[in-house]
């Protein structure tokens, strides 16, 4: 395999790692707000890296521009969706989990 193919694989694998981190975080973290951290950040980077890996595979310009646009839309929509979800929770009066709050 060429260096190019290896770097594509590396990017996709690292991207997958962060996506898995997002999934693990979703399960392990205590409440909606902290889970939002895991999904908004790790998922974004995971997707971006995977897109970058795909961009390496495609040699021509046009698919890369499309991938770039995809990345930009990801960067806009992920935080917006996170914001919508956490805000809805906040409006419902769901109190955030805090350190030591469990003991009560």
């Amino acid at each position, binding site marked *: 395999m060429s260096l190019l193919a290896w770097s594509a694989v590396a990017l996709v694998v690292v991207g997958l790692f962060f996506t898995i981190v997002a999934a693990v975080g979703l399960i392990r973290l205590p409440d909606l707000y902290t889970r939002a*951290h895991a999904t908004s950040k790790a998922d974004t980077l995971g997707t971006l890296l995977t897109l970058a890996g795909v961009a390496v595979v495609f040699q021509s310009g*046009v698919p890369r521009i499309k991938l770039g646009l995809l990345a930009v839309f990801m960067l806009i929509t992920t935080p917006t969706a996170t914001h919508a979800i956490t805000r809805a*929770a906040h409006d419902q009066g769901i109190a*955030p989990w805090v350190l030591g709050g469990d003991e009560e």
Partner: protein
Amino acid sequence: MSGTSGPRILVPVGDSVTLRNTVAYAVRELTEASEDGSVHFVFPTHWQTRQLDEEAAEAAEELLDRIQTWVREDLDLEPDEEVPMSVTTALIATEEYLFSYRDYADSLVEYAREHDLDHIVFDPEYNPDGQGPLLSPIEAELDRLDDITYETAPVEREIRGRQLLTGGINIGTFLGTFVLSFLFYQFLGGFSGTFDYATGAISAGIVAAVLSGITFSGDFRPLRALRTIGRLLVYFPFLLWEIAKANLQVAYIVLHPSLPIDPSVERIRPAVPIGLPVTLLANSITLTPGTVTIDIRDREFYVHAFSQSSRDGLYDGDLERWVRFVFFGRGGFRIASLRERGQADESADDQESPPATEEADSV
């Protein structure tokens, strides 16, 4: 409230086609009623204009001057004659950043109470941030109050649809929208020949004709837009770096056996104006180390912070400064950080008090 005396009217003003008639209506209301009424024309500046946008600040003051002149015209005053009734013009909320309609309503109500006004007259085309229709949400906020009534000035309203037919389209925004949508179409189509160029031009023409009125806030200024995009390209690597750091931090915390988190909700008042800058900042906060923007209300950001280190990062205000840089150039860096602006007190309190009390006042 002084319901027995003459009308006490508050008119929020901004650049609009029906402003002239609204002013005339307010003055007429005043002259037809008893004599001790008063009318205040106020311009919510919605950001610290002087510091960020000299041009907008001057435009606002010019507008208030123009209103003074109109009032004199309506009252048929000689140049040296005093205005007999209390007519006041003022810039309000000069030290605040108004993020939403709620903030507009709050600042209007605040002003009205301060000056003992009980009636608000809206210009039907009032659109203070140049973006969405803000009027009905403001009215919805006012509906909840007993002591302040409002109405929309019954003046002729220009129908938006008619602009299409009468050629009232702004050439700048039309071309801007056309070029953007044409390029987008070609990028997706891969610049693949005459057919695509023709269909692209037709589609872009339709999009521009229908949507150019709402694509840009205010007038489309190509040079300014280009500079903003240029600065956005400088901001982008910084943001990517911050995102990478955020991810390593989240990965570390999530995979650590003892899950070392110390979350809290912080309330901050960033110094950025309404519209795109607020959106960019809120989204950037969400994407970067350990912080998620939960809500924007009452002129404050509610930010959920993951750990102590992310709280520190938030109060350093790097992102805020970068966002101002993107929209207003290097001057944006000069405004002090949250900590320097005295909001550090809040963060100091947070560190001393148990985190559980922080959200005591929420909802």
